[in-house]
């Protein structure tokens, strides 16, 4: 794996800055209903310094939101150390304000009442409460909407209320859980810039910002430092500083280079013990939730780009832009294409493999055949289902038989999800049939040549 960790600048080291958060070997696991322990965050060592914007970047399932909630004291940790200004975190930490992806406004309160809520909890006298709330509403650009209910506002305006509600208590740290991802592109960009203005011009007394995101460009636009979290279980796989001065230009070469580097880091095959785990894909291999049509779309797109640019290596940001996809949508596709041996990723570039090209060029029937062959070769779960069906004299098996087997390796939900993907893929490849009502696999339609 290419090391992209850049050394901290010398001037920062000269005056040691105060740490707001610090975690050591932080762990989080949930207990599934059948009693199994499911690890979502493992061995997280990180810190947040005064005066910086730290972005936690990761795909869904990387536990980044859980990490944020643990720091906020909303979710108890399962192990390790979590400190806020040197004090252990047990329970909601005062002086932290959180902004939610879903805004989390109370629909039965007006804008003003929503903003006053935190002050009310602090038992601030009503007159002062009102004055401070109105000041916060003005600061965030909501004047005139004080008496409106959240349902009357657009998404962007609602999130402004969310920010006003967070900022009115003069928080020490601002915690943000994907605050812009429920907004349309233009609104999100305006809000990012507005927030950066407030921050860089020191209009708010907040000492640090922790932002959770899955959007690479957003991270590069806003962060002083980025921590990249890997999935299953979530753990820190990389960390880097961003030295670009504000305001940052998305079109500049440095910006684009950084985005590419991060793409590479996020798709890099994790080394060490994880690589070992990946090499033995047993029946519990986590199949990405991905339809065959989407996969075919990806391969066709790769083929087209290859022909247009006469370049077999296509950079992931370029691909994402071309397909108008966010990272979250793109990664399962890439994972599926790699898993089935249709494409390969190296250093943030993706290329079509020969099998992928055959698939793209094939007729519908040929596609099904090559898909079936790769599926049986590379996905142990599909191969297992087929062989069980072949062995049984009536060629039928209930899905619970495979579900229980999967649950030895995966959580209940995850097992269901993986099996559903296997059902979908296997049906397309005509390796087996499935009756959703009876939840039974069968060979009633044995068209595929296994």
């Amino acid at each position, binding site marked *: 794996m290419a090391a992209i960790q850049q050394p901290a600048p010398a001037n920062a080291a000269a005056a040691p800055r105060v740490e707001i958060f610090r975690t050591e070997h932080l762990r989080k696991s949930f207990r599934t209903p059948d009693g199994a322990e499911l690890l979502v965050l493992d061995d997280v060592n990180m810190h947040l310094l005064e005066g910086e914007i730290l972005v936690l970047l990761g795909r869904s399932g990387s536990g980044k939101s859980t990490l944020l909630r643990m720091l906020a004291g909303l979710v108890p940790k399962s192990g390790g150390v979590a400190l806020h200004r040197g004090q252990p975190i047990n329970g*909601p930490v005062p002086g932290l304000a*959180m902004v939610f992806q879903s805004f989390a406004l109370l*629909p039965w309160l007006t804008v003003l009442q929503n903003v006053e809520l935190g002050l009310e909890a602090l038992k601030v006298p009503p007159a002062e409460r009102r004055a401070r709330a109105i000041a916060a509403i003005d600061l965030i650009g909501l004047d005139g909407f004080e008496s409106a209910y959240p349902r009357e506002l657009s998404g962007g305006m609602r999130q402004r209320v969310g920010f006003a509600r967070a900022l009115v208590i003069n928080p020490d740290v601002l915690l943000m859980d994907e605050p812009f991802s429920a907004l349309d592109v233009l609104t999100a960009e305006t809000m990012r810039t507005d927030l950066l203005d407030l921050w860089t011009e020191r209009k708010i007394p907040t000492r640090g910002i922790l932002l959770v995101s899955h959007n690479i460009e957003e991270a590069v636009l806003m962060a002083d430092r980025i921590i990249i979290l890997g999935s299953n279980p979530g753990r820190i796989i990389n960390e880097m500083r961003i030295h670009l001065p504000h305001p940052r230009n998305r079109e500049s070469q440095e910006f684009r280079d950084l985005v590419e580097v991060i793409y590479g880091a996020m798709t890099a095959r994790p080394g060490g013990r994880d690589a070992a785990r990946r090499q033995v894909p047993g029946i519990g291999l986590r199949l990405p939730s991905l339809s065959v049509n989407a996969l075919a779309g990806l391969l066709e797109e790769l083929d087209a780009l290859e022909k247009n640019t006469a370049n077999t290596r296509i950079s992931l940001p370029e691909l994402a832009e071309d397909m108008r996809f966010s990272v979250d949508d793109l990664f399962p596709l890439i994972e599926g294409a790699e898993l089935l041996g249709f494409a390969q990723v190296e250093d943030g570039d993706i290329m079509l493999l020969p099998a992928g090209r055959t698939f793209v060029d094939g007729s519908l029937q040929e596609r099904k055949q090559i898909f079936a062959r790769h599926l049986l070769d590379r996905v142990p779960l599909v191969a297992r289902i087929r062989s069980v069906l072949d062995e049984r004299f009536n060629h039928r098996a209930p899905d619970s038989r495979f579900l229980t087997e999967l649950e030895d390796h995966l959580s209940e939900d995850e097992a269901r999800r993986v099996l559903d993907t296997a059902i979908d893929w296997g049906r397309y490849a005509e390796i087996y049939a499935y009756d959703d009502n009876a939840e039974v696999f069968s060979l009633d339609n044995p068209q595929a040549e296994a």
Partner: protein
Amino acid sequence: MALNFRPPPLPVPNRRDLIALPLIIALFFIVAHAGREMAVPFHLGQTLDISLSPAVLPEYGLYTVLRMLAALAVSFVFTLGYAWLAAHNRYAERILIPALDVLQSVPILGYLSITVTGFMALFPGSLAGVQLAVIFAVFTSQAWNMTFSLYQSLKTVPRDLQEAATLYRLNAWQRFWKVELPFAMPGLLWNTMMSMSGGWFFVVASEAITVSNQTVMVPGIGSYIATAIAQKDLPAIGWAIVAMIVIILLYDTLLFRPIVAWADKFKFEMTAAGDAPRSAVLDFLRRTRVLRLLAVIPSLLWQASVRLTPRVPLRAAAPASRRRWADGVFYAIVAVFAVWALARLLQVLPRDFGWPMVGHVILLGLITGFKVFVLVALSALVWVPVGVWIGLRPRWAQKVQPLAQFLAAFPANLLFPLFVVAIVHWHLNVDVWTAPLMILGSMWYILFSVVGAASAIPTDMREAAQNLGLRGWLLWKRLYLPGIFPGFVTGAITASGGAWNASIVAEVVSWGDKTLVATGLGAYISQTTAQGKTAQIALGVGVMSLLVILTNRLFWHRLYDLAQRRVRLD
């Protein structure tokens, strides 16, 4: 490419068939036997022998269940016809829907009081008339909200589905069965389930009633209880309670759960939701081989029906001018009829009883209304905090929700004797201590809805409140109470309706030869029914319906609208 499924070979019965087939065949025999027994000769004044031996309970339970099933079938047919007509004919709609609103405000046992003599006259010398009266009473407890639900779904069939149906030229018959009914299915089933849980109360209450100073009974759990009360047999009451618990659980497992699991495919969502309802019984039946062939019958019937119904003629809608003219005629006829009915009523009322009597009955109604209101408020005070506490803990909510549902279904009138024994024993105030009986069966709806609403409060909102440091009363005032308000209102409406209905059996209760009578409209209806005073029954039922409509219009519906307006986010 077409999938070439091979034609299915004639199936070999599997293990499950060997279990299921004999059970199904036995079921046919049992139903046939029970059907014969239900129409045995009977003359008014003759007392039916009700045995109090626990051994007869399975048979009595079977009769009760069959009455429920019969009522359910009638309700279903009624619902399909009534709702379809109301949804598709604008003139019918303007009469049927307000009529439905009135019909559902009439106390269920009021229907029984009014109709039982008529039904008995229909089948002289047979028990069939009484059976039908009981079935009719249960029908009236189920049909109205099922009809409302279906009507509302039919009116909200998505436009694109309708357009697709028109484009493919489905006729009204095909459209109903293939588009409209499947779309309405989840709502209809939910309402059917709610109706069923109310139904147990009324089937038990109506199996033994006193009409014209004669006790009329049909064999069933209700008459078993009534006999046990008359003979002061406490152990028998215990047996009846046990039998009822078993019956409701069996009914749920064998009938409702499979239907709900089967109907899950009608959910109008393209994305597969996480937790689909499951039923072991349905899975079992689906995995049988021979039995599954039965599933062919409906599809054959369907194909035959399609061949019989005409194809859609191509025609345009009636021009607006003709419509306006037809509207005028329609309203004129309705107005003339309304005026005539009102005039008749004013003529008839003073003839049978003076205005002072009407005033007295209204006063009784207000007393019962006051009791209902206080009872709902008291149960809210208890069950709202409990419901919120449970709803915020998913593991608890999962366990409590079915329990609350079961408690709501359990006919509370089986428990009345226990209260009466206590009241008699300690010489308690009858007016105060019989009041809780009214809400005993329906307060669970409050718990049930509050738990549901509390668990639906978004996690983000709870985390935001926690992050802002909301605690204690502020947290309840700002988050929990507003959050559960719509759920609470829904539950309270059901609870209050249930309490009104229950007042007819709860205000007059007895134990052996001791009869306790509380002051209220329920007692009035109950006593006039026993004495066979038809005009007074009608007056009592009329006043009660009026009060129910008024409280619904003036209080509950406004609260409901407020809840919908304030708590809605988008």
